[in-house]
């Protein structure tokens, strides 16, 4: 009995050795045939059982069967090893990952809309609605209701395109202040982006058609500090958290007090050198702002002794030029495919 056991264990050890050394399926199969095949070593050993006493034969058969089972599992394991070797060899054939990508057929949103949206999003998150309005407006909305009577010298500043005596392309988005307040009772919290038109000769810094975003917050207890807080937050959102914002006294007939809003020129700030974007001043002019004039509140039937509010109007193109470091404002209307794709 111990002879049989010895022989089996030797045989198993040798099979395991041969299988472990097999480099491919062919060698592994050869080892299997040599040990477990019809005339393999195990078959020979099984035949030798006949020489044992009859009482030992059943046990011997069981011992051999168990050994065969173990060898079969060694064979399975080694088969898997060889299969993985082959697969790994196949996987190791690499591609050139630097080969130019396949471009998606995606479209683009115009950079002006992107800037405009980012500005609006800042206000939307704070509870403002975004409202849109007409571009052709009567002079009432453009001027009269905004405390700019017909004889006011400030009308001259809005060099507008006229369609009739009283109908013109809006030179600013401020008519939306009046429209919104006439349609809704206070409190009001809106931003109104949109196109405006002025008779400016087209050059690298001017278009006769441009976009503004108007902001209006009217409620009880709103003051100039809130205007500063909100617009400072906007600039930091658009240009970075260390952005400085400057409010300078100015004059607009529809606000009192009024302020021009400047923000630190991001280009100068980044390079440390005076740049062409801001003319070397270090400040970018964003637009006008101020506390809504009491006459404007009265015009829409709001009591200026109860309600106060602020308004502002910023040029979007200017924000876009600054944000993307664009050399010429005309690129916005040219909309060249390369321009659109670069800024997508």
């Amino acid at each position, binding site marked *: 009995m111990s002879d049989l056991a010895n022989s089996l264990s030797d045989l198993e050890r040798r099979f395991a050795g041969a299988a472990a050394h097999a480099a491919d399926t062919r060698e592994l199969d050869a080892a299997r045939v040599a040990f477990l095949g019809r005339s393999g070593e195990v078959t020979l050993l099984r035949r030798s059982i006949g020489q044992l006493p009859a009482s030992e034969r059943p046990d011997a058969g069981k011992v051999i069967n168990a050994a065969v089972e173990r060898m079969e599992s060694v064979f399975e394991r080694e088969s898997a090893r060889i299969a993985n070797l082959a697969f790994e060899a196949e996987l190791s054939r690499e591609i050139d990952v630097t080969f130019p990508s396949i471009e998606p057929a995606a479209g683009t949103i115009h950079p002006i809309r992107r800037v405009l949206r980012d500005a609006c999003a800042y206000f939307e998150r704070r509870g403002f609605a975004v409202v849109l309005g007409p571009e052709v407006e009567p002079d009432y909305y453009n001027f009269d209701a905004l405390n700019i009577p017909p004889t006011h010298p400030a009308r001259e500043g809005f060099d507008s*395109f006229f369609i009739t005596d009283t109908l013109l*392309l809006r030179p600013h988005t401020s008519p939306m202040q009046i429209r919104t307040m006439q349609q809704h009772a206070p409190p009001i919290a809106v931003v109104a982006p949109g196109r405006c038109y002025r008779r400016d000769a087209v050059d690298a810094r001017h278009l006769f058609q441009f976009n503004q975003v108007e902001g209006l917050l009217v409620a009880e207890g709103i003051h100039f500090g809130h205007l500063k807080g909100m617009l400072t937050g906007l600039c930091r959102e658009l240009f970075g958290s260390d952005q400085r914002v400057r409010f300078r006294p100015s004059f607009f007939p529809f606000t009192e007090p009024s302020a021009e809003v400047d923000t630190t020129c991001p280009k100068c700030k980044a390079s440390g050198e005076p740049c062409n974007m801001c003319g070397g001043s270090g400040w970018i002019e964003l637009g006008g702002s101020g506390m809504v004039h009491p006459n404007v509140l009265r015009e829409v039937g709001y009591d200026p002794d109860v309600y106060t509010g602020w308004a502002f109007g910023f040029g979007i193109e200017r924000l876009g030029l600054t944000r993307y470091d664009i050399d010429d404002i005309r690129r916005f209307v040219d909309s060249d495919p390369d321009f659109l794709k670069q800024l997508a």
Partner: protein
Amino acid sequence: MRVPISWLRQYVDLPEDADTIADRLAMLGFPVEDIVRRPLVTGVVVGKIVALEKHPNADRLQVGKIDVGSGTPLTIATAATNVALNQTIPVATIGAQLPAIKIERRKMRGVESEGMMVSADELALPPDWFEDGIMQLDEGTPLGTNVVELFGLADDVLDVEVTSNRVDAMSILGLARELAASYGVPLRAPSFDNPGTGEDPAGTAPSVTLETADCTRFVAQQFDSVRVGPAPAWMRIRLALAGQRPINNLVDVSNYVMLETAQPLHFYDASRVSGRHFIVRDARPDETLHTLDGEDRKLTPQSFVIADGDKVLALAGLMGGAQSEVRPETTAIVLESANFNGARVRRMAMSLAMRTEASSRHEKTLAPALTDMGAARAAQLLVQLGAHAYRPHPFGSNVFDADVITLTVRDVRRLLGLQLDADRMSAHLRALGCNVVTAADVLTVTPPLWRRDLTMAADLVEEIARMEGYDEIEAIEPSVPSHEISSGQYLLENRMADTLAALGYHEIANYALQGVDMQRPLEQSGITPSHKIVEIRNPLSEDQRYLRWALGPAMLRYLGRIGAPMRVFEIGHVFSLDERPIVEEAVLAFGFSAPRLDEPAWRDSHFLRLKGDAEALIRAVCGVEVTAARDVRTGYHPGKTAVLLHDGREVATLGQIDPRVARAFDIDMPVYLSNIYLDNVPLYRIPRYRPPSKFPSTYRDLAVVVDLDVAAERIREIVQRAIGELCTGVRVFDEYRGPQVGEGRKSLAVRATIQRSDATITDAEADQVMKRVLEALQRDVGASIRE
């Protein structure tokens, strides 16, 4: 406005540095557009020519002895031809630094020259505005005085922008007052006492009749013993630094007073004003005036004038006439210091296409009190020049007082968020010239005579904010109250833009103002736009005369320019004339140019792609399905145009652009375009979920042969209706035309999916259903079935 800092310093002590002053002005609301830097000039002093002779060795040179107050006169050679004995002139001494040169001891043709006689150019003053040659200073100027210090030539000049509400600050004194108040230092304002006291010689007293209410006040004052000549050097230099060309002493005085006080003046040759009687009246039809710039002006109905009994003398507040202009021989003058209605002056100036320094101030309506101040300053200067002043004669309103304004501590707090006490507020307002009476938290404020812009509490709050400094107001984020205002339209536009970008379209932004070149290609193709086009009255150029009536033409122009296949969209407003003055609509247009495909004429994959994109877009922004129907639109391919309908209402139009139109826009490939009027877009409808049946579905494919004019959509409808509620989908997935189906017929491949919600459908049931389908197709559209 050009503001020499040296001139400001006459009235207020200021920091040395020009940039510091410029920053302060900006933070007061007067942005400085530019700082004109003055060059470094040293070592130039006042000298007097005490001897002058010809240079011994050079015909074109003279040698002078110049007394510069230091004892021995300097010997200086010059090539200038305007020098003469006893002239007082600027002299650059040895070691002096001029903009271009440093003065050193040198020999000129053998004569040792101990300096240089100096011209305006060498002091960095416009040479054309001064003597040709050596600059002439005034006799009696102390010799040896430093010329740069005396005339403030080292100080830079600020180019200051003044907002239209602050015409009072379109003056050196006005800006000095602002700076003095802001820095908290005293203002050294000049006296406004008029030295003219005596009565005019008998029968010469000027009189004024105000026939128009557009002149509110007119101060007339007569001067005689006037000698016309160059103004003193200090005045000429000051004017030159301020950008005003010196002319003669009288013109210079009027300009000087205007720059100093903002009040424009006009001098008339007294002998040329008939009866010394001035009438301010509207211009009469066909009146003309030869103005002092040499032009003949035909007066407009908007014009109003200063006239005497015979003739027009001047355009009110705009420009004088040549006829009554001061001449070299003039000895008696009448000064006009008047106040006009700004709107009227502006209308007149625009109608005559003229603008002057005077009108740019008058058109903003000056304070009437300035008339007396301006006359007084002019009289002081004219008396200094040796003229005799008679008493001023004011006409018109004498009421200058502004309305009293009540301001409370609360006003400042609620507008600025600043907690200031009444004393602090009143100190700020007093510094600006207001009269303030304080009682507890209430200020009773009378604005100064020269400020017309302060009319209500909010105006005073801004003054207080400016004096405190806008930087001092704390930035606080407000809590925004809730409200009911909707962002619907904005969200719709953004959803459309996002969806189209995801579908591969690029957003472009064209001009809304267009030239005739946008219509011409259509006209060439025999198309007249159905809309009445809106015309701009005052375009800057012909290519912006019309408002776009559609987004298509500019989009086609863009695709033509790009030349390669491109997918684009634009959202914008379009305009047309209607019974209402104007119709303005928000429109989305999207489309593409694409290479021609190798397809039979009755199939167009590009069209189907466009339709698929339009359907996907509407699904995304409205949550609804649309159906297509054939359509015909001008400018579109007559066989490849469709309208998309929802609940029978038009949502979108789409199709291939008529190839003739595309060619007219220089596009030599097929172009497809879809338009959606945003008002036609159904409100977003939340789609409802239909759970799938637990039981498997089956499908049946059919090949249906029908006449060519039977639309695929019709087949789909018939099949769906015939299957009824068991139908979970019908799709026409192929079309074939050719000899196998015969002339005038086509074969459509249809797949119908059939499913029961309560059990697995059997083949027998499905076949039964399909029998109904075939019957319906045969009955409704005469279909035959291909095996």
